[in-house]
């Protein structure tokens, strides 16, 4: 998967994954993709809701050994 930016929030608790993702997304151009890494178990629900409300696209998300990966394309 092509990505323009990786945001590592592993080990960080709510609300930091979303806050860091938002800050990172602000630096991207429309159409670019960022990958967010998180170990917060609530982050699947969090990211799905956040992307929907902010009109960006959650291209894909997956879990690998307790690390959640989210690919978000900026609207």
């Amino acid at each position: 998967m092509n990505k323009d930016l990786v945001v590592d929030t592993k080990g960080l608790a709510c609300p930091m994954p979303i806050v860091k993702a938002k800050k990172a997304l602000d630096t991207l151009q429309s159409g670019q993709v960022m990958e967010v890494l998180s170990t917060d178990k609530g982050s699947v629900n969090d990211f799905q809701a956040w992307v929907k409300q902010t009109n960006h696209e959650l291209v894909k998300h997956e879990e690998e050994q307790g690390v959640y990966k989210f690919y978000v394309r900026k609207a």
Partner: protein
Amino acid sequence: MEQKKKTTIVLFSGDYDKAMAAFIIANGAAAYDQDVTIFTTFWGLNTLRKDEAIATNKGILEKMFGWMMPRGANKLGLSRMQMLGMGPKMIKHVIKKHNAMTLPQLIELSQEMGVKLVACTMTMDLLGIQKEEMIDGIELGGVAAYLGDASEGNVNLFI
């Protein structure tokens, strides 16, 4: 471009745990690209006090209030399990352990995220808190300022 959504929170409580909840929601809403206002009143004002003593010109009653109330976010007590000050120490320990953010960090982050912090002037007068004793970057307002924001708010909370 569509109008940004708004979240407003009235922070009435001066409890560490309740203030944490308020600032976590505020930071989350700011990450949603919303306009966020936290309107602090009564005991909630103490979350925005500076932690050092500021020389002010006040009456004896106001001075007493100043001594009795916690000076700044880090000094707030818990709404449950205060245990003569043991509770807050324990909470701060587990916050660190779980890599969560302390209340002062959450407040700093909220300012960085553009959350508008408003202090209620009427209760500032009642409790004898002056603007110089509050952290920088906050605004002063009254019920009209709150209602102005809240009437356009999609989420309005009273904590």
